[in-house]
């Protein structure tokens, strides 16, 4: 399912937000959006996830405009940086609630619990989980409706090395079953061997869009991330 972004823009002020940006994402790509804090990564992903309304521009998914919510719902799963779950309820309750609302079969809940190694936490309140576990539940929840496109806003933010590796392993697993994945990171070295394409945002502008090997040799990488 192709995702086409045309002149998408959202500016909070002159340098914050996202200046008009266009690009196309083909089915099965694993794209890392890289940039410093405030570069516009989250703004871009939130617009693609219908979390914020753009000032201008269009997004089409499989030829259908994103604004046509009824037709595209379930095609995009957005996972925010901070897990947004019903804290006072258990992992299982959260997954079952969203499975019901997404009209996914209840067997999906069991699949997700199994796939994400969450069986032993099924009755634990989300409140009591570590950030890494919460993030796993959050990703699992987004997958309940089996969306072909997944958007992840800094999925490893605040996680330790082990948990970061675990999240990237999950991303690779999802990519291997054909999902299109776009995620953001402000640590490009981390995603060196992971992404199939890198997009760099700097001060609200898209300044690079190409394969990882090209990016790591580019002046932009040297300029932005030189030690």
């Amino acid at each position: 399912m192709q995702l086409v972004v045309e002149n998408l823009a959202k500016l909070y002020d002159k340098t914050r937000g996202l200046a008009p940006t266009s690009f196309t994402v083909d089915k099965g790509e694993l794209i890392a959006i890289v940039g410093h804090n405030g570069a516009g990564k989250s703004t871009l992903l939130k617009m693609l996830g219908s979390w914020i309304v753009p000032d201008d521009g269009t997004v089409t998914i499989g030829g259908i405009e994103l604004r046509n919510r009824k037709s595209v719902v379930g095609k995009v799963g957005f996972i925010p940086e901070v897990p947004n779950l019903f804290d006072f309820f258990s992992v299982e309750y959260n997954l079952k609630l969203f499975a019901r609302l997404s009209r996914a079969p209840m067997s999906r809940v069991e699949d997700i619990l199994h796939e994400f190694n969450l069986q032993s936490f099924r009755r634990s309140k989300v409140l009591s989980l570590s950030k890494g576990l919460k993030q796993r539940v959050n990703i699992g929840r987004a997958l309940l409706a089996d969306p072909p496109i997944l958007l992840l806003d800094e999925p490893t933010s605040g996680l330790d090395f082990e948990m970061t590796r675990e999240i990237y392993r999950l991303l690779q697993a999802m990519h291997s079953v054909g999902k299109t994945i776009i995620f953001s990171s402000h640590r490009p070295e981390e995603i060196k061997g992971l992404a199939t394409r890198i997009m760099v945002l700097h001060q609200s502008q898209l300044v690079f869009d190409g394969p990882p090997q090209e990016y790591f040799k580019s002046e932009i990488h040297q300029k932005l991330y030189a030690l």
Partner: protein
Amino acid sequence: MIRNVLILTVNDLAIAFKNKTFLLILFIPLFVFVTLNLVDQAVVDAGKIRIGLLQQETLATEVMQNISAAEQLVEVTWLENPEEGNRLLKERQIDGVIIRNEEAADSLALIVLKMDSIQTIAIMQTFSALQKVAEGAGPDWITGINSLHEGGVQRETLPTWVLMLVLLIGFIILPSQVAEEKEKKLLLALLQTPINEAQWLIAKLLLGMLLIMTAVLFLHLLGQFGPVHLFDYVAILLAGSFCFSAFGVFLGFLCRNQASARTLGVIFYLPLLLPSAMSDVSQQLTAIAPLLPSYQLYRPLQSILLENASLTDMTFDWIYLIVLGSLMSYFSYLLMKRRWLM
């Protein structure tokens, strides 16, 4: 240690400022001051009582002469029949109706809206003073008082308690819950499923209405207050709970977090509760109260619970509540579509 405490206190003040708690600190004293001023003013006004007399009924000459002579104290409205008197009493256009007391010769009876009100006390005091001036000693002219409102003090205050429950859930509980769902991005998570904005909104309104109906039912079970017109009572409560739930959800949408929602809720809750609840003790508040949306619920509740009225007598009130609730729901819907402060 003192330095740390001071730093923390300043930080707490900054948080209170950010959460708009300071607005409450300023608003509540201001509100109380204005309300008390209105009530005090009303006590001065209460010096002049407004009574109704039946045209076809002849009262003792001495009584009539004294009433005429006391025009600074007594304002008389001539009534064609007792029904007109009841209507004017309910509309608060007169404070009482004086008629001949059929049970005691040469004495008067007073019909009032509420037995325990400043209007009743004022009429009794005025007539007692007139009698003392005219006759010196002797029994009071008014020997009987009838109230249009049925039941005792418990029942008299019931409309105020019901209004309090409706407003408490509408303006304190619901805005906080909506703001929490926004703050924790739960609403956005829900909107990623096939549910749409309208469905979420309807669910929130149903929650508000359900909470209100449960609280009112519990109050009735505890107090064993049975309304005479159950259908009318439930219908006006549903209209009121819909209206104020919609209002509360809208307030929740105006706030970024729970603390702000609570502050804004209290700012709406107090002015909507007090003038309606206190309108019977102040003529000025009586004049202001109908301008508030809560009055369109309070008046019908009072009429149904205390005056045995039915819903057909209050068409304007329930249409007003439904229209206002629909308008608020529409505004919330627009804010949701814009992902306002989400």
